[in-house]
């Protein structure tokens, strides 16, 4: 039954050289196959002391339950110090789930591709985009690693797992932006418009929506809003509109209220028209604007209306500096009023001025200024008499948070904005991982010890090897000479 193919194969084996060539070829094919299999089905073992590349049980459960493909787009430059650790961690995800795909966009080489993938948020400090079909969730650098003085806190796995969980989730949180009082619009792509903010919120898992209140029955328009953002109105709220907000409050809506001082057409400061709403949370907005006199807090330009506020301990301020730890992470406040917290309220201050701030009742009206003291410029509160357990409010007496997405220098305000939204709906991470150990980030050597180490590794070790080599060769040659002499 020998066919012509077998005959030819056997004739090859008659020549040893041909047999060797065939065996080399076959070995190459077998090893190629082995590599292909190894590339498709592989395992990764994390033997490092911190176990940063070992996925926790919560992540493994998330990946095992994954039904659709998620593309993780790394948007860091390869030269970025976080690029390699992020890539290796994503490799651990890919080793666990074939439904996780990795793509890279180098922001320096491919700015257009980044713009296409990230839209208006491309200008942010983006590190990663999780994409499923048209759904996208963004992860910024500060979510991966936080550096606080000499401590590095790593939360890469938490950030990636949350992004995957968020992009796989179908429900979005409805965030309403009431208009009709001179607020900037989320549809406005121009300077001062809130279109970049709306894009960013979309990629954080929210559904932003503009809701005009200057219509009949405005309360109905706020139906089903999970969060209502009062975005720095330039005119006071009429009582009817405030009632519409209060009726949304009864249904369990949460509020992010940004109320910088409102200047009336006559040039005096006007009330915001939200006293009833704020009063239910035990908060009161003082009519006036703050001037910071502490040189370590205020900016040199202006008369002190631009200043850095001190964050107080709260979930919303998590990740910001406190006291003198890091001055660059304190939120910048531009033209703020002051907030009073009523004694019996369930409110907590978020941001405060130094104790050298003054409250002016009008612009430049220093005669009316009160004595210097510390003022609250942001507070978080729950209802004094809880009619709905979900109702929460975060009040900022300034509006800089709105610009924080388009202005990279306002990163602390962006963190405040994102944390506020999370706190308002009590959004806990979908995947909760055990905390990772922090690392110390300190210089290793003094100048003196560095030069000693330099001498050691550059001269003593190579010099020792050269000396040993010379000795061995000398001994060898003298031994050979002696042997020759003995022979002769």
């Amino acid at each position, binding site marked *: 039954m020998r066919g012509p193919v077998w005959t030819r194969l056997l004739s090859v084996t008659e020549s040893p050289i041909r047999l060797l060539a065939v065996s080399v070829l076959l070995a190459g094919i077998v090893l190629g196959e082995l590599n292909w299999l190894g590339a498709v089905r592989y*395992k990764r073992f994390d033997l490092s002391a911190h176990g*940063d590349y070992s996925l926790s049980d919560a992540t493994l459960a998330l990946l095992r339950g994954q039904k659709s493909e998620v593309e993780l787009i790394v948007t860091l430059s390869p030269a970025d110090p976080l690029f*390699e650790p992020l890539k290796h961690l994503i490799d651990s995800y890919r080793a666990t789930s074939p439904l996780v795909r990795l793509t890279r966009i180098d922001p320096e080489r491919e700015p257009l591709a980044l713009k296409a993938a990230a839209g208006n948020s491309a200008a942010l400090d983006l590190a990663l985009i999780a994409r499923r079909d048209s759904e996208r969730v963004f992860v910024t650098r500060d979510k991966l690693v936080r550096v606080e003085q000499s401590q590095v806190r790593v939360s890469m796995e938490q950030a990636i797992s949350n992004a995957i969980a968020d992009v796989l989730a179908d429900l979005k949180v409805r965030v309403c932006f009431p208009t009709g009082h001179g607020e900037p619009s989320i549809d406005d792509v121009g300077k001062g418009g809130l279109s970049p903010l709306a894009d960013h919120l979309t990629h954080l898992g929210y559904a932003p929506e503009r809701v005009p209140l200057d219509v009949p029955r405005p309360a109905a328009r706020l139906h089903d809003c999970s969060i209502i953002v009062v975005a720095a109105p330039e005119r006071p709220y009429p009582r009817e509109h405030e009632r519409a907000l209060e009726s949304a409050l009864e249904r369990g809506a949460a509020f992010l209220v940004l109320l910088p001082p409102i200047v009336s057409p006559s040039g005096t400061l006007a009330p915001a028209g939200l006293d009833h709403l704020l009063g239910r949370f035990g908060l009161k907005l003082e009519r006036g604007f703050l001037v910071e006199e502490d040189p370590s807090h205020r900016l040199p330009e202006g008369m002190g209306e631009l200043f850095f506020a001190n964050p107080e301990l709260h979930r919303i301020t998590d990740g910001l500096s406190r006291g003198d730890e890091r001055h660059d992470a304190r939120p910048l406040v531009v033209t703020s009023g002051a907030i009073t917290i009523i004694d019996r309220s369930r409110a907590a201050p978020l941001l405060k001025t130094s104790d050298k701030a003054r409250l002016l009742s009008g612009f430049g009206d220093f005669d009316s200024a009160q004595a210097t003291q510390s003022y609250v410029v942001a507070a978080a509160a729950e209802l004094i008499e809880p009619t709905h357990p979900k109702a929460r409010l975060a009040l900022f007496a300034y509006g800089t948070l709105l610009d924080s997405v388009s202005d990279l220098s306002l990163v602390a305000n962006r963190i405040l904005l994102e944390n506020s939204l999370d706190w308002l709906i009590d959004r806990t991470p979908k995947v909760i991982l055990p905390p990772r150990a922090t690392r110390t980030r300190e*210089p290793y050597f003094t100048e003196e010890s560095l030069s000693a180490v330099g001498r050691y*590794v550059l001269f003593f070790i190579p*010099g020792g090897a050269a000396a040993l080599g010379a000795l061995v060769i000398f001994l060898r040659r003298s031994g050979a000479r002696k042997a020759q002499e003995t022979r002769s």
Partner: protein
Amino acid sequence: MSGFFAILKRELLSLWVTPLAWVLLTIFLFLEGSIFNTILLHFSAMPSIDPDSSPMSAFLGQNSLLLAITLLLICPALSMRTFAEEKRQKTLDILLASPVSAAALVLGKYVALLLTYCAFWLPTLLYAWVLRDTDIDWAALATGYLGIFLLGSSSLALGVLMSALAPSQIVALMLASSLEFGLFVLGLGEYIFDSGFGQELGAYVSMTNLLDEMSRGIVDTRRIVLHTSLTAWALFVCVAWIEGQRSDA
């Protein structure tokens, strides 16, 4: 495998009683010392935000192209004389006529080179001793050296094969260097292609990837499969070549 230890001993002696290995070792340690010293200066001036970065892990692979380039030079230089020198001195025919099997001949020479390569790296453990008061991840250090070993074993095997195929030492050096440089460049494809087959292939063969992962304490079975199979294939072809030479003779 008769004659394996005899060949091993002969090769080790011929390597270490001639100046070549000692000159290479001195140059190697000076280069590695320079790299380590630069890394230390960098870390002292500006601690890295990379959570896993430490001087030892940076030295053993993290973002250290210099290390990969050093390996590209040192492995071909070590392996170039394996068979090419035998051909030059016309001692290959004597070896082929001896009762030593082809596998023992190739493996004996290869293991001698591998031991020499390990001996080259041994003094760099003193760098870790210098840093003993800092927070050293000893497991990551061990895997870092495993990465160096894996890369060296495949590079040396390819070098031995090139030495067998090439007519002279210098041609063997050039062939082995070109081959390894080609693999190195192929690995850079990981950073050139954003996704797809090119990126996957680049990531698979990337030397810097192997060293970087291993220096962080990550052991990936893909790297072990690739470098072990590359070593096995090169040595197998080399044995086949010896058998061919023997049958011709």
